């Protein structure tokens, strides 16, 4: 339960957004209830199961300063019961139905889901609608859960120097925007969070007009509409959330470097992160071009960075790139490399810079661009094999400002991107002044004080 999703998490990248493609894909329906809840229905009739997800348009970037981690903490606390359904009742019911459930928090959204046999859809909808307005918390359940989250943070971050570097890179890249704080929160701030913070956050953001219901599976739109009216339709608008305006990043001017050295680092690595426009903030086809750029630069063993550093120069054990563009505000483009034994990070960095300079000067070749397009469009067809994947793609896109049409049109817009657009995206975004370079290096064990 309750995982914090890092930026660029597989499965949530726009690179996997589905669309029509040459095979028609599912006929997606959307409508909005009177209380403002948007509903999306994705048919998948292959098996008598449904995936039921509620997406709240609130994430860690919506937290007040000094209260990092409250979005994720609340996500855990949503399992602690309501007046109607005491703690554990929902999870117990899902288990008895042979269902699976979980939840996750990201920078821009928080999502809860269950997967059950189709005939149990109404049951999980009723429970989920109930906890949209009826959450009840006592210190008896909040206090141990804070300890659980501190253990979660220890597992994810404190035992992993690479994760600690990741936090430092994000904090340096986002000098003004809340994407600079970790989704799970800073340890010293988590320690201070309590029941009042959680309830205040809940009352401010958990309301039908700030949520999207996605149902994928063996069910029709009319049936979902009737069930939604009966369950979620009874939930009152609890708050007016207004526009999602966060502090914006100033135009970056200084290339930054951070280095984490720790005796537990046994394999060094280097990463370069750039502030990059997202699908929501980009103009024209820039975000699409960035997805192709990341595929061409680092999307696999035929990509440029891998080819140059791992295969041709044989200085790296691994290398790649990713783009996190499904963000409400400016996101990130990153390139990373892991040296072969005995190779220096600076050597890898120079080789990365060389590849960036090449693509910024000349753009991709025609065959490279075609391969990258084929790959990204095929991903959207493969995604049709999984209703859970489809539900996540639609939910994540809609929760970060996209529309159903954006998702459906994604493959044709990817196909339309020119080599010049990819080159221009490289020129503008892969500019060192927009970047943070992070190095993970070994340090000798701390000597005892004399």
């Amino acid at each position, binding site marked *: 339960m309750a995982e914090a999703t890092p930026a660029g998490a597989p499965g949530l990248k726009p690179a996997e957004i589905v669309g029509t493609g040459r*095979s028609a894909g599912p006929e997606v329906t959307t409508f909005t209830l009177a209380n403002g809840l948007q509903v999306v229905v994705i048919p998948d*009739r*292959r*098996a008598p*199961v449904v995936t039921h997800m509620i997406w709240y348009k609130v994430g860690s970037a919506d937290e007040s300063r000094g209260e990092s981690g409250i979005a994720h903490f609340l996500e855990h606390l949503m399992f602690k019961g309501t007046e109607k359904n005491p703690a*554990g009742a929902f*999870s117990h*019911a899902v*288990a*008895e*139905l*042979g*269902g*699976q459930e979980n939840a996750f928090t990201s920078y821009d959204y928080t999502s809860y889901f269950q*997967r059950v*046999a189709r*005939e*149990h859809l109404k*049951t999980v909808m009723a429970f989920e609608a109930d906890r949209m307005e009826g959450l009840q918390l006592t210190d008896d359940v909040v*206090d*141990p*859960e804070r*300890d*659980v989250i*501190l*253990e*979660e943070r*220890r*597992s994810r971050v*404190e*035992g992993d120097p*690479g994760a600690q570097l990741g936090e430092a890179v994000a904090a340096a890249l986002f000098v003004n925007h809340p994407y600079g704080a970790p989704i799970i929160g800073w340890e010293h701030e988590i320690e201070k969070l309590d029941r009042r913070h959680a309830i205040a956050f809940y009352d401010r953001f958990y309301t039908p007009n700030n949520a999207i219901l996605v149902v994928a599976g063996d069910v029709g739109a009319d049936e979902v509409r009737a069930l939604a009216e009966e369950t979620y339709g009874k939930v009152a608008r609890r708050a007016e959330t207004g526009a999602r305006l966060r502090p914006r990043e100033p135009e970056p001017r200084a290339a930054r470097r951070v280095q984490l050295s720790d*005796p*537990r*680092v*046994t*394999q060094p690595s280097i990463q370069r992160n750039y502030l990059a426009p997202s699908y929501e903030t980009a103009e024209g086809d820039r975000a699409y071009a960035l997805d192709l750029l990341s595929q061409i630069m680092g999307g*696999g*063993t*035929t990509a440029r960075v891998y080819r140059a550093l*791992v*295969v041709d120069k*044989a200085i790296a*054990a*691994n290398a790649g790139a990713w783009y996190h563009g499904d963000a409400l505000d400016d996101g990130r483009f990153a390139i990373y490399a*892991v*040296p072969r*034994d005995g190779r220096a990070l600076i050597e890898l960095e120079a080789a990365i810079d060389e590849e960036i300079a090449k693509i910024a000067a000349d753009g991709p070749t025609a065959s490279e661009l075609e*391969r990258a397009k*084929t790959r990204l*469009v*095929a*991903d959207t*067809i*493969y995604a*049709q*094999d*999984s209703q859970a994947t489809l539900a996540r793609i639609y939910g994540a896109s809609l929760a970060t400002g996209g529309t159903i049409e954006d998702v459906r049109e994604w493959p044709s817009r990817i196909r339309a991107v020119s080599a010049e657009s990819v080159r221009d995206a490289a020129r503008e975004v892969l500019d060192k002044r927009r970047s943070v370079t992070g190095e993970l290096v*070994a340090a000798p*064990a701390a000597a005892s004080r004399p």
Partner: protein
Amino acid sequence: MSAAPTLAAQTPARATDIQRVKTPGGAEAWLVEENTVPVISVEIAFRGGAAQDPEGKAGLVSLMTTLLDEGAGDMPADVFQETLEEKAIELSFSSNRDAVTASLRTLPENLDEAFRLLTEALASPRFDEDAVERMCGQLSAQLRRDALDPDDLAGRVFFAEAFPGHPYGRPTRGAIDSLESISRADLVSVHRKVIARDNVVIGAVGAIQPERLATLVDHLLAGLPETAELVTVPTVAPQGVGSTVVVTLDVPQSSIVFGRPGPLRNDESFIPAYVVNHILGGGSFSSRLFTEVREKRGLAYSVYSYLSPYDHSGLLLGGVATRNDRAGQSIDLIRSEIVRIADEGPTSKELESAKKFLIGSYALRFDTSAKIANQLVQLQLDHLGADYISKRNSMVAAVTEAEIRAAAKSLFGEGDLFVVAVGKPTGLPGAVVRAAPGAGGSKADAAV
């Protein structure tokens, strides 16, 4: 819930229609025809995984496996991988202790090309010198990265000490020095021994007619040797039960792995044991360990137990990660829960709930083509028969309270565990304390 499913009534409708395709060449492949989505998934497994690594060459099968898509036939690695990419064919190879597996995903119009590449990769891998060096470098980097990862380290120490002198005690990915000792001749030899026709199982899902699958499979197998040459792996019980090993590492949280003997997959007690473990520490938010360790006391984010039936040893395994000063308390609590369920058995209500969950959730293992292909292969590896899917829920439903109590007694015994803790745990009296492998650059560091 009044809406609970009728026990045993639900079977995963889509996957029960398995065709056992017999090929003209005498092979067999299991097929689920599925025409709704334009995706074909194929999985192929060969019995004989990392347990086939010779002494001193740990990681050989793993390295051989990663080299299968690094050039084959007349295509060097770059050509092979570009050819895959041009048609967005996904082909990957993996290995575990008992098997080597190929997974293929393709659009239907590229099926012939996908099988051509798969066939080349399995029958004629090149093991070019530069590719070997590259993959060795990649695996070594992973070993170095994980050398001091608390969870990874705990798992490696557990297996090394539970299976001394047995192939399962060796690290499946090898160690940096053992990888360096591997020659091209070793790779060619182990490929010849493991990738063969008499130890293969095949599952396919998607828009393929049985006749076409038969042709593709026969062509695929034609290039492979008739018989595998597998070394015999003795079937053993894990050792160390009753003891605790601490590997000291300067981290604020202790990563703990615990285990004891468990049933093999074909033991009669497997299903009752599976059910009773689900109640103790299985995968829902209602298990006893989850409730006691996490919900009530906030001792850990993750705590779980599961049955791990390898081909040559059965295990009950579990894990917990908790603040160093709560390690003793957490392990004591887990042990007392194990003793309690061994002594008293689960309640009737718990048994009923567990059955409902296990029966109802079975269908979710079959909701994508890749998952179905994986099930088809796993059923064959486990010798369970094509009708297992339609029988399985009835078998779970039929488990009696007496069988559950017997299974709990034999699975959990007196609650003795072999415990490995990595970190600076307190409250683990009698533990044997080891230093973590050095954090410097010495080459054998990743070996445990």
